[in-house]
């Protein structure tokens, strides 16, 4: 009886292995939750359906930030981990320095139809290591944008004929606009008061002054400290004058805007679906989103990029055949990145970014201009998503915004803290 059972079990498992061999499985790790997660799941389902008889992606979503990157690091060190993973371009320096990423040779990229010329130069370069090798392929560019309430801007005379804000460029105009919009229980601006958001806004305005956050291994060196102080002083003014409420939690800042209690809102492009969904249900006023106004001498906006990479699994590398398959898959996702743009992101893949379909996609095409002057995080193991630089923004930029610490003191302390970590 037992022998019979064992035989049956063996036969069944042999059958299963037979099926598995006919179809390749790609193990996939990502950190995409929320709206991004839903959108990626739809794309993954589409991929699996289109490749039903050849490839199956087995996807797992892990916790964003430090937990994701430590898990990848520990897994690859023992030859474990996925065949493909998402990676922030801003965190590439750490990934490369810890040997987590496997370089992608030009030949294998070409073989899968991936070309550097299909991406904007800064975007493509941000996926390279200090050794000049390519370690990832970008999927999108994501940034912060200015969301605005058309009705409130119109009332204040700040809306142009084209439905876009006017007269917001230049710090003096921007301040005057905020003052004008702040009336009748409405504030001009709502900002998420978390470290990451603080960093993105700070870095945007800092770069609009031509600042360099990290130069030759020195943080906020020379006149960059003054530029950082100017930025923080400007931000502090917004809260101090009551143009933006203080200590606003991330969800509350969105609620303030969507309920019409704040005329404008600065947040990531990933909140576009929130607005689109509300508008679809008829629960939102007439809204729009544009590139962050230029307050200083030059346009610049903080940006980062979700990209795809192959982990360097020690002692158990991804086989050449599997690598080819993975790169083909990456190319497939870039070709289908219009669906990903529904999440507010800008497709990194230029053939999609310049396609008529994308140009028809609102509001993305209203702020796609930011990609040309996008500034990526400083190239350092201390910078990027969930890095000490992000933490420093939490420790100093947000308290400065809320007037708990003087701008000059905040800038100096931020510099000293980060500089101490380089030793």
């Amino acid at each position, binding site marked *: 009886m037992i022998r019979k059972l064992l035989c049956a079990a063996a036969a069944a498992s042999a059958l299963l292995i037979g099926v598995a061999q006919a179809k390749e499985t790609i193990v996939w790790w990502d950190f995409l939750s929320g709206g991004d997660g839903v959108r990626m799941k739809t794309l993954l389902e589409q991929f699996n359906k289109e490749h039903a008889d050849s490839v199956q992606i087995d996807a797992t979503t892990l916790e964003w930030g430090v937990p994701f990157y430590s898990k990848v*690091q520990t897994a690859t060190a023992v030859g474990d981990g996925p065949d493909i993973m998402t990676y922030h371009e801003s965190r590439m320096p750490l990934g490369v320095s810890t040997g987590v990423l496997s370089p992608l040779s030009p030949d294998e990229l070409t073989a899968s139809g991936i070309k550097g010329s299909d991406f904007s130069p800064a975007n493509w370069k941000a996926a390279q290591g200090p050794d000049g090798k390519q370690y990832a392929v970008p999927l999108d560019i994501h940034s912060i944008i200015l969301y605005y309430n058309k009705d409130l801007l119109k009332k204040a005379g700040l809306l142009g004929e084209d439905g876009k804000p006017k007269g917001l460029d230049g710090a003096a105009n921007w301040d005057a606009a905020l003052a004008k919009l702040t009336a009748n229980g409405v504030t001009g601006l709502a900002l998420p008061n978390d470290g990451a958001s*603080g960093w993105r806004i700070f870095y945007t305005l800092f770069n609009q002054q031509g600042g360099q956050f990290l130069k030759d291994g020195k943080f906020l060196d020379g006149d960059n400290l003054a530029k950082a102080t100017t930025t923080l002083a400007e931000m502090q003014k917004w809260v101090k004058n009551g143009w933006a409420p203080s200590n606003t939690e991330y969800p509350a800042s969105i609620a303030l805007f969507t309920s019409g209690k704040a005329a404008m809102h600065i947040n990531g492009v990933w909140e576009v679906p929130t607005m689109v969904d509300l508008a679809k249900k008829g629960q939102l006023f007439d809204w729009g989103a544009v590139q962050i106004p230029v307050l200083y001498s030059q346009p610049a906006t903080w940006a980062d990029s979700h990209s795809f990479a192959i982990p360097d699994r020690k002692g158990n590398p991804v086989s050449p055949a599997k690598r080819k398959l993975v790169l083909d898959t990456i190319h497939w996702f870039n070709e289908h990145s219009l669906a990903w743009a529904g999440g507010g992101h800008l497709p990194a893949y230029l053939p999609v970014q310049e396609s008529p379909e994308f140009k028809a996609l609102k509001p993305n095409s209203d702020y796609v201009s930011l990609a040309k002057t996008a500034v990526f995080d400083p190239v350092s193991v201390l910078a990027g998503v969930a890095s000490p630089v992000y933490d420093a923004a939490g420790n100093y930029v947000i308290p400065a915004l809320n007037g708990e610490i003087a701008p000059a003191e905040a800038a100096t302390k931020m510099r000293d803290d980060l500089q101490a970590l380089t030793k």
Partner: protein
Amino acid sequence: MLRSRRAERLTAAALMAPFAVVYGVLFVYPTLKMVELAFTNAPLIGPGAWVGFDNFRRLTVDRLFSTAFWNTLYFVALTVAPSTLLGLVVALGVNRLKGWLQSVVLAAFFLPYILPVSCVFHMWNWMFDKDFGVLQYVLAPLNGGQHVSVFRTTPYFLPAVAFITTWWLLGFNVLLFIAGLRNISREIYEAAELDGASRWTQFWRITWPLIWPVTVLVFTIQLILQFKIFDQVYLFANFIVRYDPSMVMVEYIFKKAFQQNMGGLAAAASVVLFALIMIISVLQYQLLRARGRR
């Protein structure tokens, strides 16, 4: 006689072996490795070069480490003694109840203890919420009518987390004390009553001395537990922004090892924490036991 003793020893060794091996491989070996790591400049994964006491020197000059060190001690002070004493008070009360009422009340006190830390965090984060929290009805009048952003106000952060932690873990202390109280024979109290001792005298002369060993136990468990504070502080700090002023030691270790890839430095901080816990718990255990013996 001699043979049988040898056989006994063999049996003992065979029975001990599984534990000894597991303990050695999973506890002693990693601990020794950690101490070794503390003297190297190793990253999170992989070997490093021997750097002597350099990591410890760096800890002494790191402003963040000293913040973490003092915050940890502060948190221990805020939680250990209060939660031990509160546990005893609640246990004394519950012990006086009878029948099903006692079970219900005991369960009510124990309920928070079985919640995972993430639930505890979400519940209290909502209750304390600046805009929508129910606790603002209590806090705002104390603050001149203004809503208070408790976790964003540095001086309130650790006391608030300590309060939540005490609420969360109290049930376990109560349970230990109840077990201790039930072990005290009724007859002693009856004899005391016959001698005309008041409830107050009964407590100080009978309950307090006889419950003392349990008190020492609870105190020690709490002490070690609270020195290792991480989850709650990490969760609450993650939702606000100022990590540094609220930093505790385990969080510092986590940050150095996993965010900044500095295995050696993180190991050195772990060694400091390990030594600190060992010294203080041994000291306090000896001290309290000596007091109890009197």
